[in-house]
């Protein structure tokens, strides 16, 4: 390969729009997962469509658009991509999952407190004493609003109490 063609290649590579590329790959991935999981469903005919008809057609279309987006990514040229920050995503994700586990075991008050405390780790400007007060206030508010006020059938107290 000559020196010239190599530089052109890397320039073109640098010139790809990351946003479209990422979305295109996501479309392809989702389409692939779906296609892989609908193979056992009957496709049917246009008159008597089987359960597999719609998901299969949609998956192929989505895959097509995925390819088209990748094409656009190449054609459009480079575009600024936003960075991903791990800390807020981890903290918020953990807070949500803890809420899911907590509601089965700890009851609404304790769960809300835990979720708020973990969620508080997401912001860089959090002050821990504020977060603790917030956690207790939100826990009490949720208990009063949803269990006492609206009478929703939610677990109120931890299982072990």
């Amino acid at each position, binding site marked *: 390969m000559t020196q010239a063609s190599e530089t052109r290649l890397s320039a073109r590579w640098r010139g790809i729009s990351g946003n*479209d590329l990422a979305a295109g790959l*996501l*479309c392809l991935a989702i389409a692939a997962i779906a296609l892989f999981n609908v193979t056992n469903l009957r496709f049917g005919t246009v008159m008597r469509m089987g359960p597999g*008809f*719609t998901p299969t057609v949609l*998956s192929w279309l989505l895959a097509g*658009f995925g390819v088209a987006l990748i094409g656009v990514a190449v054609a459009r040229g480079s575009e600024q991509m936003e960075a991903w920050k791990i800390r807020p995503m981890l903290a918020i994700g953990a807070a949500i*999952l803890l809420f899911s586990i907590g509601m089965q075991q700890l009851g609404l008050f304790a769960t809300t407190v835990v979720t708020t405390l973990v969620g508080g780790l997401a912001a860089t400007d959090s002050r821990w004493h504020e977060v603790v007060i917030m956690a207790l206030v939100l826990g009490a508010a949720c208990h009063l609003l949803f269990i006492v006020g609206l009478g929703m059938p939610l677990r109120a107290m931890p299982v072990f109490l």
Partner: protein
Amino acid sequence: MEFFDHLALGAEVALQPHNLFFCLIGALVGTLIGVLPGIGPVATLSILLPLTFHLEPTSALIMLAGIYYGAQYGGSTTAILVNLPGEASSVITCIDGYEMAKQGRAGAALAIAALGSLFAGIVATILLMLFAPPLASIALQFGPAEYFSLMLLGLATAIVLSQGSLLRAFAMVLMGLLLGTIGTDATTGAQRLTFGMIELSDGIDFVPVAVGLFAIPEIIRNLEFPEARSVVNTKITSILPTREDLARSWKAVLRGTGIGSLLGILPGSGALISSFAAYVAEKRFSKTPDRFGKGAIEGVAAPEAANNASAQMSFVPLLTLGIPGSATLAVMAGAMTMQGIRPGPEVMTTRPDLFWGLIVSMFVGNLMLVIINLPLIGIWVSMLKVPYRLLYLVILVMCCVGVFTVNSSPFDLVLLCIFSLLGIGLRKWKFEMAPLILAFILGPLIEEHLRRAMLISNGDPSVFVTRPISLVFLVLIVALIGAVALPQIRKRRDEAVAE
């Protein structure tokens, strides 16, 4: 005149002190649950239903109806304040409503939403009184072919309203449609894309998807860019809409009311489609379509009027045909059955007091809603002054509780995490969520009606163009897409020529 006889009969029932009281309770509870995302009207009605068991049927229905349209009304509050659509029909309100809030104009947005809803509610109730039976016969004209084309038109509006390229909007629509196929196939009962999980056999609920795509990515974004959130916190201008706001909004409210009243008659997704359609209509009619998506007040006024009008009109199929148009109305139908009244055409003749009393209570209820809500606006807006490092914790907890209480399902929170991740990614890559979510909701309905239409026509696809109502919708779709696609194609061609 018959109209005034009915009005008098209804007023006699609705204005009795105890019925006024239940109407007020309904409006209050409706507002409360509308503001709390996820705690949708279905869940609340289900909880309150047993309490109405021992009430007189008319009072019970007046209260439940108040909750229903009150929730529809309150749903816009969190959409505007924190980008959290509590219900499908407030998805569209997020776009310009939240943008207005970021510019410090949350008060104006909330006030216009309230006033627009009041106007729409009253007009729709008058239409309901005058034309309920003939309107019901319009709904009967809609067979599978007509519904299919209408829903497709709904999807087309999603593509039209997006700001970016058509390609991206189509990709989002397809993703939403595919997600909508998860669950038990309505036509054959087959399990599709459930990955062997029983939790997925009813499909994915709207709430984890909406909260995951809208609210959580917004929290993450504000935490990642502390400088962006300062906009939300500072410089809240006037709480009331300006003269200019009102001048811009009144036509939008009128058009929204018209669209909502028409589409609300149809059982199914009337409220949702009408809010999207009203938004798109505004954007098309506007001399300055560029303002949409950047805090245009018409973008709040029109869809809010439309969804309240259609909430009111959706009582037409329930009361005249006995067909509940939505899950919420199905609970209302249940409430009637529990009282020993079968919802259907005979209600109007056998229980005129109940029928007209309920309808007149809607005037009262809508008025109460505005009286309750206008003073609240100041409180909501001042909540935005809470420092974001504390506010986001409140929003986070609201999201979790809201998603959990839909089905009391821990699994829904796992779904929330997955959709949050999807939402964060799509947002970073500059994709829009509204087309995805509309497609997600309409997808299963489109498929159902398509398959039904093909079975009835014995596989002949010409039904969609030979049936006039269906043809009209299809023509509208082509016109809408064409109006967006042509300039984009022309632009691209010009660019190519220039190169």
